[in-house]
């Protein structure tokens, strides 16, 4: 019976762990929740990224690049945003809003040109990528504005 009493104690520990896991999941430790949602870069800076620190494999997620165009970019009516190549390679991009004019691939980054409306001025614009991660594990990322600042972050994708 010693074994059985030990098994019952372990069972109760297991129940507590299950409840804790469920609480963590509700809070977003496994994606979709306050623990997962975060930013990279200060919201007052020229570039900051809103992303989910924790995600799940092949599950739709939003990646929002908030870009404040320079006066030159505002006059040109477009801004070029880029995402690091290793990060982009493991993403399946469903759509980008606003739809970029051009996509260019380089050895270390993927660039896309986004048109600005005439009245955007130097206001911050959000470029939203609707993506699905194709690889599990820790993914390091970098995004930036051509000729401007860049931001680094990491995400953990559960299988």
């Amino acid at each position, binding site marked *: 019976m010693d074994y*059985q*009493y030990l*098994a*019952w104690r372990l*069972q109760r520990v297991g*129940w507590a762990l299950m409840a804790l896991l469920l609480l963590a999941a509700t809070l977003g430790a496994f994606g979709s929740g306050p623990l997962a949602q975060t930013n990279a870069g200060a919201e007052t800076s020229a570039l900051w990224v809103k992303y989910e620190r924790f995600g799940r494999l092949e599950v739709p997620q939003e990646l929002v690049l908030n870009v404040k165009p320079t006066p030159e970019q505002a006059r040109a009516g477009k801004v070029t945003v880029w995402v690091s190549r290793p990060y982009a390679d493991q993403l399946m991009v469903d759509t980008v809003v606003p739809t970029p004019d051009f996509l260019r691939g380089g050895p270390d980054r993927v660039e896309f040109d986004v048109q600005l409306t005439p009245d955007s001025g130097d206001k911050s614009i959000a470029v939203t990528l609707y993506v699905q991660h194709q690889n599990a594990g820790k993914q390091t990322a970098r995004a930036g504005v051509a000729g401007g600042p860049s931001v680094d972050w990491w995400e953990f994708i559960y299988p």
Partner: protein
Amino acid sequence: MNTFLRVAVIYLILMILFRIMGKRSLASITTFDFVVLLIISETTQQAMIGNDFSVTNALIAILTLLVLDLGLSFLKAKSPLIDRWMDSVPVIIVEDGKTLDDRMGRARVDRDDILMAARMSHGLERIDQIKFAVLERSGEISIIPEDEEK
């Protein structure tokens, strides 16, 4: 590889979770338990096969489950320790007409469960007519009635 890993992980997780839930969770199937089991089976299906609905993938998933089941059966046969931890052991919960309340509480079995098993198996009416009631590894309760001379 992907399918094998998915299926193997789901199989092991389900086994551990149901083991943690306890024996009675599988034995006493109420309507609610039935609904939970149905929903679990639907939930795990997508996780096991992902977006691959091919016959080949289904075959790999089925083979993985059967081989894992076979492998664990061999392990249990070879190792009494593994057998004990995977399938638990029978526990006496009534002895000589008296309930062992501590064990019943820990196993989440109440007097009504024991009386139901006693009625269904031997037509007994009272606890004091039971010599031994054993909570089996399957979660069912088996009854050994008191000798009739008593």
